[in-house]
């Protein structure tokens, strides 16, 4: 079994077998992070360019750690420091970097489809680290790894994703992945944060957060950004918290063994109460840890690291 794709641009085109392969590989990678010497030589001599055209602290750090644990050389290219401010196009930036013989690009960009734009111009492996509100495949995979560790599998699992559905790349990748793996997905948020025709994704859609929580096995909260309120999408952060904030009381409606997830960074007292974020059902920090393992797995699989190189270091 191997990946059938050269790149990881989105979850939408992956098969359930490929998803399982990535998760299984990530489980093996996790062990590396707990060694005294947290490094394997799998990607020694490979150059990975982290192309970040949008601010991101955690995703970039997570990728960078994953690259370093696999012994890859890394180059961090960020928009503020780049020639983009001088008017160079994305394609030209890639054409220039291409001559530095990178083996992979990890790209974060504010425009949906940015990976599709550059794909014809590079021979290197392309990993999407988030394109606008489109996809964020590594986030969905690290979420899946966390769910699988806690729940054993996906089939028939009841998953609720709540919050700013309209502007979230996390939600699209998660929906594609969870549906492929057989989970039962509900999306919830105020109507102004639910884009039209969501039901065409094969999910249930509701604006009633309390009832949506009933019997859920997994509750995934999404970050609310302050600028959404300024654009008139909901009246106030206080009102948001009152009707869509995940509190301990509300969480009692979910399954007794519910897990609470959040892609971070969390807004305490906006979409999630501190007692929940820090409470016994929360797996938010497990997600962060799994992020490194999943990103190691993806880079390892796509860059063709030798078979058993993870075992001897």
């Amino acid at each position, binding site marked *: 079994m191997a990946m059938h794709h050269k790149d990881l641009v989105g979850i*939408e085109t992956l098969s359930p077998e490929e998803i399982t392969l990535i998760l299984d590989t990530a489980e093996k990678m996790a062990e590396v992070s707990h060694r005294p010497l947290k490094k394997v030589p799998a990607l020694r001599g490979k150059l990975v360019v982290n192309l970040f055209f949008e601010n991101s602290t955690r995703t970039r750090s997570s990728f960078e750690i994953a690259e370093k644990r696999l012994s890859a050389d890394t180059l961090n290219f960020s928009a503020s420091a780049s020639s983009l401010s001088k008017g160079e*196009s*994305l*394609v030209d930036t890639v054409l220039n970097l291409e001559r530095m013989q990178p083996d992979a690009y990890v790209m974060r*960009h504010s*425009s*949906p*489809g*940015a990976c*599709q*734009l550059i794909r014809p111009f590079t021979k290197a492996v392309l990993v999407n680290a988030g*394109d*606008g*509100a*489109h*996809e964020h495949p590594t986030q969905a995979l690290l979420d899946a790894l966390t769910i699988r560790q806690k729940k054993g599998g996906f089939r028939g699992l009841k998953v609720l994703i709540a919050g700013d559905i309209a502007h979230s*790349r996390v939600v*699209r990748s998660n929906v594609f992945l969870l549906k492929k793996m057989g989970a039962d997905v509900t999306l919830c948020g105020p109507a102004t944060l639910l*884009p*039209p*025709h*969501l039901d*065409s*994704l094969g999910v249930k859609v509701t604006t009633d957060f309390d009832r949506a929580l009933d019997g859920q096995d997994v509750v995934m909260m999404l970050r609310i950004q302050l600028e959404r309120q300024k654009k008139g999408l909901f009246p106030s952060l206080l009102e948001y918290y009152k009707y869509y904030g995940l509190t301990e009381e509300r969480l009692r409606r979910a399954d007794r063994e519910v897990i609470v997830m959040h892609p971070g960074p969390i807004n305490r007292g906006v979409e999630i109460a501190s007692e929940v974020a820090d409470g016994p059902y929360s797996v938010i920090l497990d997600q962060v840890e799994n992020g490194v393992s999943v990103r190691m797995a993806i880079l390892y699989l796509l860059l063709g690291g030798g078979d058993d190189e993870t075992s001897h270091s």
Partner: protein
Amino acid sequence: MKRLILKNGRVIDPAGGVDETLDLLLEEGRIAGVEKKISLKGVEVFDAAGLVVAPGFIDLHVHLREPGYERKETIATGLRAALAGGFTGVCCMPNTDPVNDCASVTRFILEKARAASPVAVYPIGAVTRGSRGEELAPLYELKEAGVRAISDDGQPVRRASILRRALEYGGSLGLLVIDHCEDPDLAEGGAMHEGEVSTRLGLKGIPAEAESIPVTRDIALAAMTGHPVHIAHVSTRLAVEAIRAAKKRRVPVTAEATPHHFTLTHEAVASFDTRYKMNPPLRTQKDVDAVIEGLADGTLDAIATDHAPHTYEEKLQEFDRAPNGVIGLQTAVPLALDRLVRTDRVSLKRVVDAFSTAPARILGLEGKGRIAPGYDADLTLLNLRKEFVFQEKDVLSLSRNSPFFGMRLKGAVAGVFIAGTFYGAP
């Protein structure tokens, strides 16, 4: 005396209800005779057997880009594509740099066009100075310079009061007001149609109502002032229905649809290929069906290309940053023949009308849009049996932003006559 007999063509003259094999006598740039058989000794004969002979096609909506954007297109290259595409006349939109909001720009365009091509150019003037939507452009001056219609195309006439004044002042001068109907508030930041596909792709959508709401407003103002309004590039079922209802009430409204809006749906955007990015955006299959039905029953009077050239590098950008628009002059007629006529969804006579008689009527062009004695010898010849694959190397426009490369089409332009002179298709 320059004379020519066009023999055995299938002559379609929608206004005269004619669709039969006839001979035409062309004399001094005019149609001098339409008969079952015309034989005159010593007169040159053009064999049109197997071809459809239609009144010259007129495109109501073209961006020639000159002055100001000569890297996208020039008047000369745009007209070269128009001629090859079967058009004997085109209207060019005023969103150039400078905007065509005064007589000197209009005269510049007309002079350049006359020097470059036999294709007639009808410059469209701006409704407002600089198309900024604030104060009326000098409409009297524009009319005297040769403008027949006005539009702030590329953007809507935002303020209802300005549109009202344009209809009153311009309408009383005989100027047709053409409106690009888009509610800028509802459409803000949108890169494609708001629907299932935009939700899947995470691109901000433009709802159908962003078109239908201003269409309804424009219809109300046309009824109020009694002066005609022409709705550009109708793309939604909601707008088609609003226009159909208005026509029933005899409101002076006319409308056009583009070939891409009757051919493609928003599903094409899933590739993130910016050649599928245009404004109005590609809509749903239901909208496509409604546009086709609107063309069939005449609710949508005309087919216009909205030919909008952009350079390679402008289109080679992130989808949400790339400019809107597709070229269309060379594909419009084959797409109509293949997608509307061959499928029996719109009659050939109606398609000919939508390309010729209707635009001539909407613009009030004398001597155009009919095949009858006394009319100009402007004709478009069609070969309904010819099949071909449209390729990038066939493009005569300066820009190549077409989504139709590689498409097999049945029905082609064989050539045109302009003022009695034949120009064969390349």
